[in-house]
């Protein structure tokens, strides 16, 4: 890819055409060599793409994910994020932009990243990973959406950690355990970057921490949100809060006053 290349987005004509095409030719979404340029050239209802106003400043060439550990493919998200330097939270939820990227830039990666397993319906599978206009799935299952948002959250959390964490370390945790990233989207408390950083530090310091304990810890922190404004707390206080929540999962009899 050339430096500073125009990033296009689909028009509604292009989107609808691809959507129908996916329903008629689902097998093309299991073939990493599908040429969507050629396919869209048959669209006669109008222009299928337009300038998104953004530029690609690096390479969007992503190596295919490993069959035996597909989720580890998420590790490349920081390179992807940095190549999309002009993208912002506002543009990163635009389904026309994300769907274009999925089809025209990272289709091969997308095919390798997501394993299609019956009895999942193929149309649902394609919708979730190549299209997904649903906000709930956009940052979780849409391939481009997941890459950008994972890197964005990691970058913000690293910035809030007072130098104790890098974005790479956070992404390492996210890609090794998809649950950690998915949950950070679902729970409002984890949208606080400083708090997310403290939680990741706990995961790094406690490699044996199981998913059940992790969930209990997060729920204990979440309960505090009702009566407290966690954004008002310093990093030290957040650290105290999360460590106490962690201890609470190990010893149910400890008092709950933080």
């Amino acid at each position, binding site marked *: 890819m050339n430096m500073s290349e125009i990033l296009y987005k689909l028009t509604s004509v292009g989107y609808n055409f691809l959507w129908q095409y996916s329903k008629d030719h689902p097998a093309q979404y299991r073939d990493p060599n599908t040429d969507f340029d050629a396919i869209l050239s048959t669209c006669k209802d109008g222009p299928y793409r337009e300038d998104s106003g953004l530029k690609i400043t690096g390479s969007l060439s992503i190596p295919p994910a490993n069959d035996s550990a597909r989720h580890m493919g998420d590790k490349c998200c920081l390179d992807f994020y940095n190549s999309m330097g002009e993208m*912002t*939270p*506002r*543009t*990163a*939820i*635009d389904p026309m932009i994300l769907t274009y990227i999925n089809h025209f830039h990272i289709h091969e990666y997308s095919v390798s990243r997501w394993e299609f397993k019956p009895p999942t*319906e193929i*149309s*649902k599978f394609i*919708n979730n990973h190549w299209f997904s*206009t*649903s*906000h709930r799935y956009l*940052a979780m299952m849409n391939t481009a959406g997941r890459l950008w*948002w994972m890197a964005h*959250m990691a970058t913000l959390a690293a910035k809030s950690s007072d130098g104790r964490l890098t974005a790479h370390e956070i992404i390492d945790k996210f890609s090794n355990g998809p649950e950690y990233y998915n949950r950070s*989207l679902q729970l*409002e408390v984890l*949208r*606080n970057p400083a708090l997310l950083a403290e939680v990741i530090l706990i995961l790094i310091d406690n490699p044996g921490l199981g998913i059940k304990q992790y969930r209990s810890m997060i729920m204990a922190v979440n309960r505090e949100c*009702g*009566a*407290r*404004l*966690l*954004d*008002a*707390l*310093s990093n030290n*206080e957040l650290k105290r809060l999360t460590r106490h929540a962690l201890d609470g999962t190990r010893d149910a009899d400890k008092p709950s*006053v*933080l």
Partner: protein
Amino acid sequence: MNLSMPHPVLTPRNSNYTSGCKFDARIEKESHENIINVSVRYSLASKKLEGLVETGKAKYFLAIKCNSTWHREVYSTDKHICNFEMDVCNYEGKVTLVPYIATVTRLKSFKSDEHTSAMHDFNPNGFDLPAGSILAMADPYEITFDSNNNESIITMKSSEKVDKNRYEISFNNEYILIELHNETFNKVNSMRNQTSGGLLHPSLFLIALEYAIRKIAEDSDDSKGYRWANAITTIMDKKNLTFDTNNIESSVHKIAQTLLEDPLSRLFETSGDEHE
């Protein structure tokens, strides 16, 4: 919706404080290309809480939250006025701004003559509060950002002055303001993201927009010089929308629906997504 907390909180949504005590915030904003300058003026009538702010044990906070972009920010101050900038690139759709007062240190035996007898009975020795404890909360304020026009010309706000399950629309501002009773505002917001309630929010906007377009069609003085009126006429010009002088009412309806980009069809698309 009544707000229940484990300690006294000054808010219109409960009666933990005696009458005469109040916490409110006036929020004003001004758009400049990709930046929105926000000015918040806090208004507090509680000697106890004023004392906590003055002695550095509590602060004013404004929590900004956008569900669409998962973005959240908090601005704090120990002054009655706070000014800051919102970068449009972080927001899309509904953005909620909630004013708070919260502790910045641990507070022991928090009690006051301003608390109601129910609070005294509940805990006669006062409340031990950790740092970050919410002491007051004002009515939320909402800004809507839409991709076509940066910041929406319609804003929705909760207000105790409006009767329950009713709405008021006013046009004597830079933007069209829809005011709803607290409970109704919360209901509309909670239903907004569900398919079954997905029509409620755009319906209110459609009603407000039709009123506004009618004022423009009638060349009413109410529409002259306001930002919302200029924005509507600019979009109408861009989309070649004109009034049918033989049937103004019908063209008002059509124009409003076009400007909102067919709210019904978006509801059907949302339904399709959720069933898949």
